[in-house]
């Protein structure tokens, strides 16, 4: 029963290492997927646009590649997170729910705020990538807040 004094890791430690390994594989797959999407988009873009630096409307991709990247995006932003939700325990699921809620509320409040500020002449008109960035950044900030402060 004494796990620390034994040279062999206890059964619990072994399972924890296995869990950590699975998590690392999950993150590696997500990173590779992101790299492939970003790399392919940047390498094969035939237009003047840029997904991250603005002007994404002027991007031009071969149709087959565009469909392939769309499928990868669906995997990266839908299938992978849903699988991740199944993989994690209650505690991490709660943190992820806080993060997703933060992202969702930021978009729900962010768009109308941005629109009225634009109407008042303070900022440029709302655009799709800006809304996406609000969701992504606020989701990440909510995750960090939930992980270390709640």
């Amino acid at each position, binding site marked *: 029963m004494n796990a620390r004094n034994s040279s062999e890791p206890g059964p619990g*430690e072994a399972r924890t290492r296995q869990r950590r390994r699975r998590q690392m594989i999950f993150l590696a797959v997500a990173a590779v997927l992101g790299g492939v999407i970003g790399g392919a988009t940047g390498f094969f873009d035939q237009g003047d646009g840029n997904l991250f630096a603005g002007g994404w409307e002027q991007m031009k991709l071969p149709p087959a590649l565009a469909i392939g990247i769309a499928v990868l995006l669906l995997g990266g932003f839908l299938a992978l997170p849903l699988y991740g939700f199944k993989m994690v325990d209650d505690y991490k699921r709660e943190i992820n729910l806080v993060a997703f809620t933060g992202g969702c509320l930021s978009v729900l409040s962010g768009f109308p705020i941005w629109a009225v500020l634009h109407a008042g002449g303070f900022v440029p008109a709302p655009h799709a990538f800006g809304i996406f960035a609000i969701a992504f950044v606020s989701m990440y900030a909510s995750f960090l807040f939930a992980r270390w402060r709640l």
Partner: protein
Amino acid sequence: MKNRLKVLRAERDWSQAELAGRLDVSRQAVNAIETGKHDPSLPLAFRIARLFEMRIEEIFDDGENP
């Protein structure tokens, strides 16, 4: 919610990773429960009670008991 998880774990000389593996949760979850940042779900509370062969209310205290 207050709990005796850290004491019970220390009595058995288990690390957080060891307890986490035995409960099939992450080490961060054990840490969050021990520090009172996270209340376990009912199924997890039962697993904890079973592992330490105690009743749930002997491990967790919601402050309502006289």
